[in-house]
């Protein structure tokens, strides 16, 4: 009899490990720095907040349902229960409750997300793009409009070293596209991602709030070199940013001077 009870304990306890392990993983991960990457954008807090909101909500549902599962396994084991089986085919009232309640919650979650989505993808700021980003196998190219603030003019600065410079604490608008196949312009530290498609132009906008260099990741399979399609974005204070642009323009002009036949291309 003791052995039988042990067996019962073993299986229900094995399933109890699921909610315990699940919660423990999410609690432990931040201590190992396995967590959201540092957020340097203004809107990132909203997205992280929405994530945590859903994490709490689903976390509670997860723990409650897994505990119910554990409890039923523990209590209704045939070896230990001596009650007769509840001969029940279900209950209309209970079905209604667990249909309407989750429906309301899910609808609420959906509506609750809409504002952040609209802000991130539907309401571009009224300004000219400060840079055009072009993905190609396997590099990110950047074209700055130069002093005249117009893209595709003589004074554009074109860079293919994978380094993007942007001003900090300012709303910026990026124009992004692709030259060859699909790529995805992913800025983990800014919680932004947008696939780029050849033949289509998209925009991305954000405001960074901290200076420093951060990763640009390609997040859409684009070929053997997909893993190394890496870039860096640097956020600079306005004065340093202006200087940097000026530096890059001068550098480009020197290079043009050195290659006279291509200069007037």
């Amino acid at each position, binding site marked *: 009899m003791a052995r039988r009870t042990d067996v019962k304990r073993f299986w229900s306890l094995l399933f109890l490990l699921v909610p315990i392990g699940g919660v423990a993983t999410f609690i432990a991960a931040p201590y190992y720095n396995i967590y*959201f990457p540092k957020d340097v954008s203004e809107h990132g807090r909203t997205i992280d907040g929405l994530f945590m909101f859903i994490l709490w909500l689903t976390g509670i549902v997860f723990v409650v349902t897994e505990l119910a*599962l554990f409890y039923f396994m523990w209590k209704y084991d045939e070896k230990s229960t001596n009650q007769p089986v509840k001969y029940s085919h279900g209950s209309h009232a209970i079905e209604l409750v667990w*249909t309407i309640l989750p429906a309301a919650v*899910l609808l609420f979650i*959906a509506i609750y997300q809409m504002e952040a989505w609209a802000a991130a993808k539907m309401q571009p700021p009224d300004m000219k793009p400060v840079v055009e980003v072009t993905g190609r196998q396997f590099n990110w190219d950047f074209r700055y409009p130069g002093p005249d603030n117009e893209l595709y003019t003589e004074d554009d600065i074109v860079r293919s070293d994978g380094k993007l410079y942007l001003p900090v604490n300012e709303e910026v608008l990026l124009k992004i596209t692709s030259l*060859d196949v699909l790529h995805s312009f992913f800025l983990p530290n800014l919680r932004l991602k947008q696939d780029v498609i050849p033949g289509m132009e998209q925009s991305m906008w954000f405001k960074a709030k901290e200076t420093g260099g951060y990763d640009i990741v390609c997040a859409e399979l684009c070929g053997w070199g997909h893993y190394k399609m890496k870039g860096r974005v640097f956020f600079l204070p306005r004065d340093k940013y202006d200087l940097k642009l000026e530096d890059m323009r001068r550098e480009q002009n020197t290079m043009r001077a050195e290659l006279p036949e291509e200069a007037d291309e």
Partner: protein
Amino acid sequence: MSTVTADTHADAHGEHAHAGGFLKTYVFSLDHKIIGMQFLFSTLIWFFVGGMLALGIRWQLAFPWRPMPILGNLLATAEGGQIAPETYTMLVTMHATVMIFFVIIPILAGAFGNFLIPLMIGAEDMAVPVLNMLSYWFMWPAFIAMGTSFFVEGGASQGGWTAYPPFALTQGDGQFLWLTGLTLVGISSMMGSVNYMTTIIQMRAPGMTMFRLPMTIWAMFITAILQAFALPVLTAAGFMQLADLKLGTGFFIPEGWTTNNNPMASGGGQPLLWQHLFWFYSHPAVYIMILPAMGMVSDILSCFSRKPLFGYKPMVYSISGIAGLGFIVWGHHMFVSGMNPMLGMTFMVSTMMIALPSAIKTFNWLGTMWGGKIQFRTPMLFAISFVSMFIIGGLSGIFMAATPIDIFIHDTYFIVAHFHYVLFSGTAMAVFGAIYFWYPKMFGRMMNDSWGKVHFALTFVLLNCVFFPMHVLGMTGFPRRLADPYHYETFRNLLPLNQFISYCAFALVACQIIFVINFFGSMFFGPRAGRNPWKSNGLEWQAPSPPGHGNFDFQPIIYRGPYEYGSPEVEDDYYPQTQPPPDERNDD
């Protein structure tokens, strides 16, 4: 007696009953049980192949660029068994392709659908046995196409299982064979699904009304409908990509498009079109890969809880609800694809709503176990684990359905965690449970229950160690399909966790040996099962084990649904569908 329905079909198949010869009996068989078995063995072999491909991925993520022992050389990669980056993209592509199109879909519909449908509805065979045989044999050209693609110049497809153009169009013969294989799988599925629908509608035994069908059959029925309506779109899209690849059309090629190795391109097309067409099939396909598992789990749970299924009709309606909504949620794969963000809003609402029927099902499974007398046999443990794991897989879906969050976690390991919780921890565990459950009916012998439990415990613990940490990996933004993520500053500290996951993955694959030995050993050494070893109500358990040609040695007449466990009407705790009520006058 109203035995007419089944008898009319008897002549059609009677002639096969005594057809002799090894080839006719076991190879080109028209018997649904043999065809189901053929599907089962083929898919289990591909399951092994897909698992090996996964090991390659896990090796590279744990020990980037280090030569892989044993498998490395087999995968024909760079010097000394090192996994080259192009091999890595091939691995992720083919792992997904093999697992989805050669394992999960055919093992559910092909193996269990074929084996169970006629037995559970009381028919002698499928409505069109020849079509059934062809649906299996059309898998073989697909197997050959995908199999040989590993050996053509440039190797198997590296375009991802989603085959997004224009990148997929830069692939060589590997992509051509991939598309060919996919189309052939589609033809096979189509023949299967037409047959299943016809059989379930037309060939039920007397008394087997639609609302007396077990959940397995309901799920197979709805799945067949999904297949029949969604597949043509994928097939058409596949042909369009084939034409783009080989005939110089430009359905998915934008104006003025070139790559360095592919200057053809007539242009004027739209890459996003493929994504819409592909996901219009492949999202319903997600439900094709889970609904039959849900059905089988419902049957197993009710049987081993010795209690009627809680909320049978809500279960049927929620399966239908999933199928219906399944057609209008494909856009949630494309939130950051560049499609109109306005559409993102509508797809978010419909996607949130599709979580509802799944929630209803989960609550009903819990309700089924509540107040029962649970027997912890191997199939039951797998079925309970399906419920437990599906809760995780279902809830993590809500994160990605929320568009602003999806901007961040799209194409990260969060989605990898999500679909492995649904497809491996969910469907594959349900399939294991179903194999343990119906094995006695298939082979007439029992599988070893103790070793089954060892297999279960190891698999259950290890799969959680493999897939659960992927959620937190996804929270860091760790992208999928990256051969070496560690040269990004953001992801550098994730190597130890990935190594832990990989060690667990190797152990997870290794412990499947227990299952393989149990599976094949029990065919010869397992104890004889008898007709109804689990004391189940299902009609299939009234047939001999294994059932002969024509399935039943009596004319089944159905008096009730399949979930009458613990009924006060009878002494036993089960009440088979064919057992006449104690007082015949009550039933007229």
